[in-house]
């Protein structure tokens, strides 16, 4: 029971962080955050790849990559490596599933596997 409430709290906190981030910059940044939530570890190159491959039609500016990596949604975990907090990540993934559907998530996951290979 406690675990459930703490998970919910994490998600609420994550939602607030995401909303603050989007409010500060631009609504299009939310889409980039969705895709960035899929991999466990983010690198500048990977984020650039996701933006170029999936967000061309949304016209997310290039500087959004920098803003996302340097925002409080991500924290550095190694040289040129970033990770999202679990609360932020789970909130973004649930929102992504609602907005874009599970199929889209699977497509992006396949793309990520292809990128890693």
């Amino acid at each position, binding site marked *: 029971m406690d675990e459930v409430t703490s998970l919910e709290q994490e998600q609420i906190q994550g939602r607030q962080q995401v909303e603050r981030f989007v409010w500060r910059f631009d609504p299009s940044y939310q889409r980039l955050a969705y895709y960035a939530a899929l991999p466990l570890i983010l690198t*500048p*190159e990977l984020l*650039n*790849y996701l933006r*170029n*491959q999936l967000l061309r039609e949304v016209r997310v500016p*290039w*500087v959004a*990559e*920098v803003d996302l*990596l*340097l925002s409080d949604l991500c924290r*550095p975990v190694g*040289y*040129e490596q970033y990770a999202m907090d679990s609360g932020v990540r789970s909130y973004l993934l649930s929102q992504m599933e609602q907005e874009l559907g599970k199929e889209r998530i699977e*497509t992006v996951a*396949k*793309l990520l596997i*292809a*990128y890693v*290979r």
Partner: protein
Amino acid sequence: MSDFQPEAMVTRLFHRLRREFNLGLREYLVALDAVQGGFGAEDLDSLKMVLQLLWCHSVSHRNQFGFIWEEIAAEQPKPLPKSSEKPSRSEETPIQPPDPSPQTPAPPEPRPLPEDRAGLKPLPVQPPVSPTDLDDAPELRLYFPVSRRAMTYLWRYLRRPIADGPASVLDITATVKQVCRQGFFLAPVYRRREVNRAHLLLLIDQDGSMTPFHRFTRDLVETAQTDSTLEQVEVFYFHNLPFATVYQDAYLTVPVPLKSALASCDRDTSVLIVSDAGAARGYRRMERIRETTEFLTRIKQQTTLVSWLNPMPKDRWQGSSAEVLAYLVPMQQMDDDGLSNAIDIVRGQPLAHLYSES
């Protein structure tokens, strides 16, 4: 058995795929060797599998291969029946007579081929597999508003030509003058060949808020060092501030005193500083501004050819340390124009256009 010619199939497929799959003669010969060694020589399915293993390096390749394979396999005289009815091939004539009771014995064989072909012809238009064909080009795209190619091109403008090379350039004017003065032709006059003696000192902010720009700074350094005609390129790295120590490597592990890094700096040295100056996070810190000012004063005592390249767009400098520092040193945003302006400044040419008055 005799109709199935795997080598011919390999050749046909190779001609179809060589451009899309970037196949060379080597891949072709490897496939032939495999077939001659007995791999894929049994039937169409095994040949398909072998060729996929040899030639397809991604999911999209495999999909594309599938379509083209079916198209080419359909053109084969006996594609599917052959594999299952290899022995009965010779008995075709006896088998068909029983069926002909409803007449027209021959047509059943050729019919599927044109149908298949007609059905597959529109498929060469690949877009149907939308998610997979995306992963075909992972290494393309420009990362930032300035590409590596543009950098290479723009470095060419950083020139300090000095006639210091071998005396191998024929000076016709001087030769004619000499002939007129002496009254006869004795020898041609040669002048020294011009050499680009530009000396560039790159000071690059690394790590922290500059981490997302590492790719850009790497490109900048690599193009300056390898793809340009600059005679001397020195690169030093720092974190936030080049206070007393700078580093020789991008991982900030080999420290060098700032004094010795600037030792080779004279009035003809072009200094290009690359840093976001707090603009990436939107910070304005007086301490940073003060210390950067001291550093800039120190550099300006040695050379006036100093410019600052800020990877953040100009509209994001507002409210950060960059906004203040842009009054102290010509600061350019990172795009084609910005890099071009920065290079104009560090080669001692004032900006002719009104792009960035800071």
